[in-house]
């Protein structure tokens, strides 16, 4: 099924904006409503938009599944290892070892309302990014594989 030019061009124009908005939601997860899952889902919706708009082209070259799978593994490993790093640094599993250190994301925060500073939150922004990447890749992989399996001459996903 071939989509009309309007759909395809609009999708191409919208795609970067959707990605940027998703990245904003992920990065500001510790300050504003949102976070890794929500932002990741927004970004995945961009990928799905491309998938729908260009469904007549070869999906394999447009959205390579292997790269998405690698991104997913990377996100999960980043999440797991940033939690495990606390053990290596000598405290418990999942301890927030970056908070209040003054390093990356380590500015201390006072209690009470404030305008929001990006460089806070310790490992929370790191985990947000990890989860954002994971959700982006996971939802895209699911959508791409399901989409590809509906094509009549397709035997399925290669291993």
């Amino acid at each position, binding site marked *: 099924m071939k989509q009309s030019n309007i759909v395809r061009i609009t999708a191409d124009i919208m795609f970067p904006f959707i990605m940027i908005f998703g990245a904003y939601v992920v990065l500001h997860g510790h*300050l504003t*409503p949102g976070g890794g899952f929500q932002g990741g889902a927004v970004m995945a919706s961009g990928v799905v938009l491309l998938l729908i708009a260009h469904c007549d082209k070869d999906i394999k070259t447009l959205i390579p599944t292997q790269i998405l799978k690698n991104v997913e593994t990377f996100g999960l490993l980043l999440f797991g290892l940033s*939690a495990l790093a606390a053990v290596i640094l000598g405290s418990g599993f999942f301890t927030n070892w970056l*908070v209040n250190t003054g390093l990356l*994301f380590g500015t201390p*925060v006072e209690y009470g309302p404030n305008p929001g500073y990006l460089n806070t939150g310790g*490992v929370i922004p790191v985990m947000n990014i990890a*989860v954002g990447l994971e959700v982006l890749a996971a939802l895209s992989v699911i959508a791409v594989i399901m989409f590809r399996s509906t094509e009549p001459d397709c035997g399925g996903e290669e291993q």
Partner: protein
Amino acid sequence: MNRKNGITVCIIAIIAVVLIYAQSGISFGDPVYQDMDQYFLLNGQVQTGGNNICTDVVFDFRAFDTLGEATVLFTAVMGVIVIFRRLMKGEEYEAE
């Protein structure tokens, strides 16, 4: 067929009565105990540095749940990949 419908209606009626009875024991907007959440609201910002207390709970106080949740998503992806995989030649399991 009619008997089966009767049983279904009975099951649904019992579940409905039980659930609606159960929710009447909790009052909306005025929880009895609030101490754990109050702790998060008072200390979350200082302990974790995040302004959004929900994210603090998700990624710090209950971060292990979040790892589990990411794992569930990963499991689903692996499941979908396995289900839609291309079988090898002559791979057959079910003798019928």
